[in-house]
């Protein structure tokens, strides 16, 4: 049913349609509206047979979900940013134990400095934790990915993180088709766990594994994620058949035919990029976009095929692996490795801590990639003047201490940063 609805609210409704049995809620911006929405649906009786638990921390939120999932219940929670870090230990644990928990991540920067706005640093911090990580481009996709996530998680016995850009999607009110209960019921079977805590058939879950088998455990975990590559594609196709729209999958191409320049990005920024591409195509520039939906597992082969013909690949990502560069760019680089006549790779970090990624900036960036390529990692819309002054000062006067504070001090004294 089409609705003009806030993204978080739509996600809450979609998650409720998946009939989760245990929901753990701990507030953190910008994830709050999702769990608030779910809380209301449970309290007002729309979502029955569901335990809604107000826990005392994100660590507890995922831990409660772990317990519920191990006991055979469909478990859900949501978090963001610091919350994800606070539950980090449990994030690894949930995947290690093979528990099909679905968690929404309202993507947000990580402090310090504390920042509540959107980027992908939080998701990147858990990229190696053994979860499937799916990035929603739109709120419609966010809704659809949650439905697919439960099915994927339970089929693979592997937790799934649905990454949704904080504020930009979570707080945007727009036209979204929220499916009907019979549709979802027909598509998503009830949870049938492969391992469950049951007094009738007792098992011990969570053994200590030593050097003699740990490598095998990890190999199997990795193998299972590679299996997921096929399943994610299949489910996206099934989903399209059942719901009549394309959502999910490993990656998505936009105007890639004959493109000289291919942009690779994840999440909501892809919408803006598409508008930019349309405008550039109108100007005759052969440019296209590849949207990565499944960041984990990473669709290396599929991406390689897609990028093979391009001259330039521009990776735009909302995260920075400090000291290395863009983590997505690194993964894309891996996909291009050993490719004969591989396209040039240009890495751009954009939108950190909620800085708007604007069309003019993207226009500039994409043009620059082919005509004036840069070395290393480009920080989109970086205030060169400020960082230049700061670098200069610290060179002169060796001063330990938080760069952020120094910057803020300078911003205050110099007025408008831009």
């Amino acid at each position, binding site marked *: 049913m089409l609705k*003009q609805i806030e993204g978080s609210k739509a996600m809450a409704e979609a998650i409720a349609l998946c009939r989760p049995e245990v929901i753990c809620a701990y507030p953190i911006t910008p994830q709050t509206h999702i769990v608030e929405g779910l809380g209301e649906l449970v309290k007002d009786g729309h979502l029955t047979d569901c335990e809604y638990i107000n826990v005392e921390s994100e660590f507890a939120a995922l831990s409660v979900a772990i317990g519920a999932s191990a006991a055979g219940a469909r478990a859900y929670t949501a978090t963001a940013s610091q919350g994800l870090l606070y539950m980090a230990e449990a994030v690894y644990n949930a995947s290690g134990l093979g528990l099909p928990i679905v968690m929404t991540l309202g993507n947000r920067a990580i402090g310090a400095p504390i920042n509540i706005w959107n980027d992908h640093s939080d998701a990147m911090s858990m990229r190696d934790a053994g979860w499937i990580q799916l990035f929603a481009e739109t709120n419609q996709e966010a809704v659809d990915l949650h439905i697919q996530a439960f099915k994927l998680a339970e089929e693979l016995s592997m937790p799934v993180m649905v990454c949704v850009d904080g504020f930009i999607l979570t707080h945007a009110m*727009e036209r979204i088709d929220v499916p009907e209960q019979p549709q979802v019921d027909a598509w998503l079977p009830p949870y049938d766990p492969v391992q469950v805590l049951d007094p009738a058939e007792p098992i011990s879950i969570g053994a200590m594994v030593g050097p003699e088998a740990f490598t095998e455990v990890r190999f199997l975990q990795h193998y299972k994620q590679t299996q997921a590559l096929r399943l994610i594609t299949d489910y996206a196709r099934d989903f399209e058949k059942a719901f009549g729209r394309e959502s999910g999958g490993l990656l998505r191409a936009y105007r890639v035919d004959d493109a000289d320049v291919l942009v690779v990005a994840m999440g909501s*920024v892809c919408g803006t990029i598409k508008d930019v591409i349309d405008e550039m195509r109108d100007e005759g520039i052969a440019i296209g976009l590849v949207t990565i939906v499944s960041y984990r597992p990473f669709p290396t082969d599929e991406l390689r095929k897609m990028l093979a013909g391009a001259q330039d690949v521009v990776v735009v990502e909302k995260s920075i692996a400090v000291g290395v560069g863009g983590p997505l760019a690194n993964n894309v680089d891996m996909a291009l490795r050993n490719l004969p006549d591989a396209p040039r790779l240009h890495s751009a970090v954009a939108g950190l801590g909620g800085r708007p990624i604007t069309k003019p900036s993207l226009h500039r960036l994409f043009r620059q990639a082919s005509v004036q390529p840069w070395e290393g990692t480009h920080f989109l819309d970086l205030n060169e003047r400020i960082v230049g002054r700061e670098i200069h000062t610290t060179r002169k006067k060796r001063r330990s201490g938080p760069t952020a504070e120094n910057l803020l001090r300078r911003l205050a004294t110099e007025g408008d940063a831009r």
Partner: protein
Amino acid sequence: MVTAAEMLSVAAFLEGRHAQAFPSFGSERTGAPVVAFCRIADREIRLREPILEPDCLIVQDPTLFKAVDVFAGLKSDGYLLVNTNRSFVDLHIDQIARRLPAGHAVAVPATELALKHVGRPVPNAALLGAFAALGELVHFASVQQAIEKTFPGKIGAANVAAASEAYEIVMAQERAAAAV
């Protein structure tokens, strides 16, 4: 303000159009300056950047003029709607208003209307009613429906009444401007 943007997006949705309403993201505290955006289009809205060059600017609290440059980016053929019972001259924005095409800058005492009809200083519905009259981007009927969806029952009716009066006030101004 967020509610106003959302109601506006609902009104557009009800007319079969695409609309995207979103707040200026932040940890708002009650009373702090807030900006909310609404895009309306006839096709899917993919753009996710904040609106830097609005076609329409609705100012709910003119006291903010001193703190924030709210007019930055307002297009030269844009619309301006200000919640006030004072004149643009009194607000020292008459110059800005004059730069816009005739009838594009309108003042409406939305808070006063809200106090009159709803009993509380909630100007959102009145502003939307006024906005429906301005530039006719959305129909008043859609605004009325959106208000009723957001506020069911008596409060909804009171808000519709405020919106309706605001609509009439602006329509009167528009007619006056057209007559000039």
